[in-house]
């Protein structure tokens, strides 16, 4: 064994080192071919390695070590209170860098941990990547899990899990299991994912396709969004089409295209859909706007319904003082007190006290005290309580066809 020692401030040329290499601060090492260290390469302070280096293990402390060529470490890389920059291909079994790791070429490792910043200009293949601060990678990243405490910017991803405390911006790709972001998320290209959880703000600038989407604050999707369950605490906006099972929005929800669901649409405030809505049930706290809506179950609206072609459901219930423009078509339609609507079509229709309707077409129609309807067309019964008025009641053998 013959260890190699590079004194402080010196410049030496090395080839094969049978043993350990120890380089002191402010030294420069020229490569005689590839530098091969059979033992551990140890560095203290700023050191320049002008060429390729291979070693069994790496241990550096303070300052910055720059390897201008490729770096291959059979075992582990440990950098204590320092930085590492690799100009070419970087291979190591495990990597643990305190301050900053700069990768100018591609990197392949199993476990990669950086306390401060990981800045990569090429691709990264790893099993796990953990960064305390910021992570930026210009090439594709393939890994089982990536986590970072601060901000993350990735061009193209193929991951199982992505967990970030602060901000994420990704070009696109696939996160197969879960994306979990504390703060804000943005994807610029097409993205497929499993579960998606963002505490604050999420923005899909291209098509997104995933399972469960749970966003605490605000979600915007510039194009189509496909999901199993979409849950947003504040505001949701899909500028393309939305397709999935259930939607639960705490505040406002808007869709630029159509919304196709197999389950429930629940919105605490206003829901606005430019195209058609299809689903099982509808529950809107405030205003509901759509070209048309067809639900196989019930529809409950607390404020205003505005459709062009109509709202159709097995059961429709409009709350106290609600308003509707466009026809309401249901098996059963119930209006609570002082609701005002245009046309109603249904099998059983009940208008509570002081409700107003333009036209009611149904099998059995019941108007409570003070309800007023211009025209009623019915087949079985028309019952009017005290003060209820119908200007033009008409009993027929068969009802005309309903809209939708």
């Amino acid at each position, binding site marked *: 064994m013959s260890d190699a020692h590079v004194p402080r401030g010196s410049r030496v040329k090395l080839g094969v080192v049978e043993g350990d290499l120890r380089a002191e601060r402010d030294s420069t090492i020229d490569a005689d071919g590839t530098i091969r260290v059979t033992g551990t390469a140890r560095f203290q302070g700023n050191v320049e390695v002008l060429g390729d280096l291979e070693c069994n293990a790496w241990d550096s*402390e*303070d300052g910055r070590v720059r390897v201008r060529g490729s770096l291959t470490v059979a075992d582990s890389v*440990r950098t*204590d*209170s320092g*930085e590492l920059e690799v100009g070419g291909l970087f291979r190591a079994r495990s990597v643990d860098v*305190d*301050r*900053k790791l700069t990768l100018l070429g591609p990197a392949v490792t199993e476990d990669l941990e950086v*306390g*401060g*910043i990981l*800045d990569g200009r090429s691709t990264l293949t790893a099993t796990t990547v*953990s*960064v*305390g*601060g*910021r992570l*930026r990678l210009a090439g594709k990243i393939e890994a089982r899990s990536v*986590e*970072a*405490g*601060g*901000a993350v*910017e990735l061009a193209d991803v193929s991951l199982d899990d992505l967990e970030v*405390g*602060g*901000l994420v*911006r990704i070009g696109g790709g696939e996160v197969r299991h879960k994306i*979990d972001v*504390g*703060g*804000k*998320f*943005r994807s610029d290209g097409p993205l497929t994912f499993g579960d998606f*959880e*963002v*505490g*604050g*703000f999420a*923005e899909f600038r291209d098509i997104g396709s995933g399972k469960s989407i749970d*966003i*605490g*604050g*605000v979600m915007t999707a510039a194009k189509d969004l496909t999901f199993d369950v979409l849950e947003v*605490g*504040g*505001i949701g906006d899909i500028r393309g089409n939305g397709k999935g099972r259930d939607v639960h929005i705490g505040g406002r929800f808007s869709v630029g295209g159509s919304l196709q669901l197999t389950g429930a649409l629940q919105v605490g405030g206003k829901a606005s859909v430019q195209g058609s809505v299809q689903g099982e049930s509808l529950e809107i706290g405030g205003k509901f706007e759509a070209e048309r809506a067809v639900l196989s179950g019930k529809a409950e609206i607390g404020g205003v319904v505005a459709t062009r072609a109509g709202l159709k459901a097995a059961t429709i219930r409009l709350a106290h003082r609600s308003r509707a423009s466009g026809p309401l078509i249901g098996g059963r339609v119930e209006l609570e007190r002082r609701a005002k609507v245009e046309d109603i079509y249904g099998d059983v229709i009940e208008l509570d006290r002081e409700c107003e309707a333009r036209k009611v077409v149904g099998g059995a129609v019941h108007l409570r005290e003070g309800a007023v309807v211009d025209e009623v067309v019915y087949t079985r019964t028309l019952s009017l309580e005290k003060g209820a008025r119908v200007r033009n009641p008409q009993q027929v053998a068969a009802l005309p066809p309903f809209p939708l």
Partner: protein
Amino acid sequence: MTPERSGPDSGARRREATDLYATVLEVVKRYHGGARITRVSYGAGMPVDRLRILMDRLLSLGLLESEEVDGRPVFDVTARGQEFLDTYWKMNGYLTTLELYDHPGERVSGSSKRGETPRRTDPIARNVEPALPALRDPPPLPAMATGPKPETRRRRNRSGR
């Protein structure tokens, strides 16, 4: 941040105390119970002396907990700390939205002199774009004692968010 960096040309708002708390908690969380103060300082981009004051405050508020491992303190986020983070990010999302709705027509605000980064209303761009292209190095640390490095990192299951 992530809670974004403040600075004369960052175009971002000043980091409030709550932003700093969130920054530190998010970094601590990444170490799954084995966060050393030096590592947190690299992750949060904050000098150790200033960070120590902030972490003492987080400990006294019950948002962080610490224990001795190999004679050195390591930190973890408590359930209450996680609750703080959840609330912080949710509120952050609402505030961003309210800002957008308060200034619906505004695309670029602030100075747009040549060479200056415009302040955009795009909430992601506003936060990420000024920060990421110019990654900042963590501040220099006071000289560290050399010697054998105790194994302080321990992996364990996190309490889920």
